């Protein structure tokens, strides 16, 4: 295509991908390969039977849960590690395994880990820091929520986002990043701890998949999206999530005494890498 100034550029479309007709005309071998790839990309949820036995419904094998707190991204996960998981007796009770083109082949590490506390077993915390491909998001949500009892369930999602994604009529420099914005499902009755996400901003990725599922299945859910202007995980962004957990303060204790130390450890690695002269 020639532009206004005459140079020829290859056309890129926001909406459609090229070679869209090829998929229809594939032979059996292609289909076989496609099936194998699909199988490899399947999402697996594993629960630790000993840890969940006491809270599993005998009838439908679902795990009882009153609050499911999810952290998507390194800042959200770091916040939970520093303020919540380091105190109280949190034990890993489940994990989600998946493979996609960005996974490291050698490591068999779970992509998401689910924790619960021994003295308050109905709160589950899920930390998710790895990349989940677009075609795996729906499956992830369906499979994880299939294991959790829906009655009386409340979902809180904490999610990282880059400031570059935030649309506002004002300049992005005047908004004072990092800051929180909320989105809630129709069933969520309480007041969010921060302003709601303005139009025309949207949320994508795992947080969107979970919130869509909750909206459609009528589960009360709230998403706190933290917009940050720092590329790597940093302590200031992690602290921004604090108000998001205040509604859960009776169930989840925010431990602030050791958190500074842990936060320092979490971000130390990045600091060392980002400075050319150390």
């Amino acid at each position, binding site marked *: *295509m020639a532009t206004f100034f005459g140079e020829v550029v290859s*056309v*890129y*479309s*926001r*909406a*459609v*991908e090229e070679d*869209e*007709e090829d*998929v*229809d005309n594939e032979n059996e071998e292609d289909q076989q390969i*496609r099936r194998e790839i*699909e199988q490899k990309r399947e999402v697996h949820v594993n629960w630790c039977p000993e840890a969940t036995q006491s809270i599993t419904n005998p009838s439908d094998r679902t795990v009882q849960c009153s609050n499911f707190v999810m952290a998507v991204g390194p800042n959200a996960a770091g916040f939970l590690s520093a303020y919540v998981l380091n105190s109280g007796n949190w034990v890993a009770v489940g994990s989600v395994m998946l493979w996609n083109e960005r996974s490291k082949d050698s490591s068999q590490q779970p992509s998401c880990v689910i924790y619960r506390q021994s003295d308050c077993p109905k709160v589950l915390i899920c930390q998710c820091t790895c990349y989940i491909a*677009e*075609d795996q*998001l*729906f*499956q992830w*949500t*369906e499979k994880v929520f299939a294991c959790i009892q829906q009655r009386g369930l409340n979902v809180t999602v904490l999610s990282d986002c880059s400031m570059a994604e*935030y*649309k*506002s*009529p*004002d*300049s*992005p*420099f*005047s908004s004072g990043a990092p800051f929180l914005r909320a*989105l*809630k*499902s*129709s069933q969520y009755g309480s007041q969010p701890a921060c302003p*709601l*996400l*303005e*139009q*025309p*901003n*949207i*949320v*994508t*990725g795992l*947080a*969107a*998949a979970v*919130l*869509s*599922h909750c*909206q*459609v299945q*009528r589960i009360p859910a709230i*998403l706190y999206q933290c917009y940050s202007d720092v590329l790597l995980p940093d302590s200031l962004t992690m602290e921004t999530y604090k108000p998001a957990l205040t509604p859960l303060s009776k169930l989840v204790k925010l431990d602030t005494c050791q958190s500074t130390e842990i936060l320092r450890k979490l971000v130390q690695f990045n600091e060392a890498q980002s400075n050319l002269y150390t």
Partner: protein
Amino acid sequence: MFIQIENTSPSFKEFTLVMPAVSVGNVGQLATDLIISTLNMSRVGYFHTGCLIPMVGNNPYAPSADNSTELCTTAEVYASPDLKLAVLQIRSPIIQTKRKPFRKLIISWIKSSGFARTVLLSSSHAYQRDDQQIHSTPLRYLLSPAMQRVVGDALKELDWREMEKLKMFPGLSETEERLYIPGGGITKGLYTDCCSEDVPLAVVLTFCSEGDNIPDAFALVSHLNDWLHLVGKPSDAQWKVPDSWRLLFGNGIPLAIF
């Protein structure tokens, strides 16, 4: 699959369904937005499927001053029972390996809901038009045989142009022709499926280039209105632009640069 909203039990019997194809310039989706926002249609359900990339946001049709808290998802169904009209809006791309299942899902939903006819709003790359296509209006239509029986010659009387078939081997064979809709996403596939499954489908599409496609959306939706008379008389159609169309070209400028 279609999941209705609590307290509504929509019946789509004898309704017309309008839906976009996710295609070049997102023209079909923009035109669909215009219909929903202008007719002030109410949401009756979700189209919840793993074939689409998940996204959520706040109600895109609420005025920006209104602190609306209605969550919107990837694909939603809106209805206007007075007009016997249902609209499916799709807000994100279809996952490439899941185009076929998605088409199947749409067709089985159309069949089970009892829609009288379906209109697919679509677009195609303007730069791939051939000589005869360049010399005329950019708007085209296609009717499946089942739709042809319903509509008859109504569209020809409106002076609409049918999408031309291209020669498969130009210069060699004049007889073999094929339908070619580059950049049209699932348009061709859905049309072919509807032909073989005897589903009444009309494709209304425009040739366009990627860029500011709002004028294309207005042209497409006004063209559709000439046929379906969704808003008033064709001449005085006033389309309402949804508030969520703001900031399509980026944020405000930092004042410090002046």
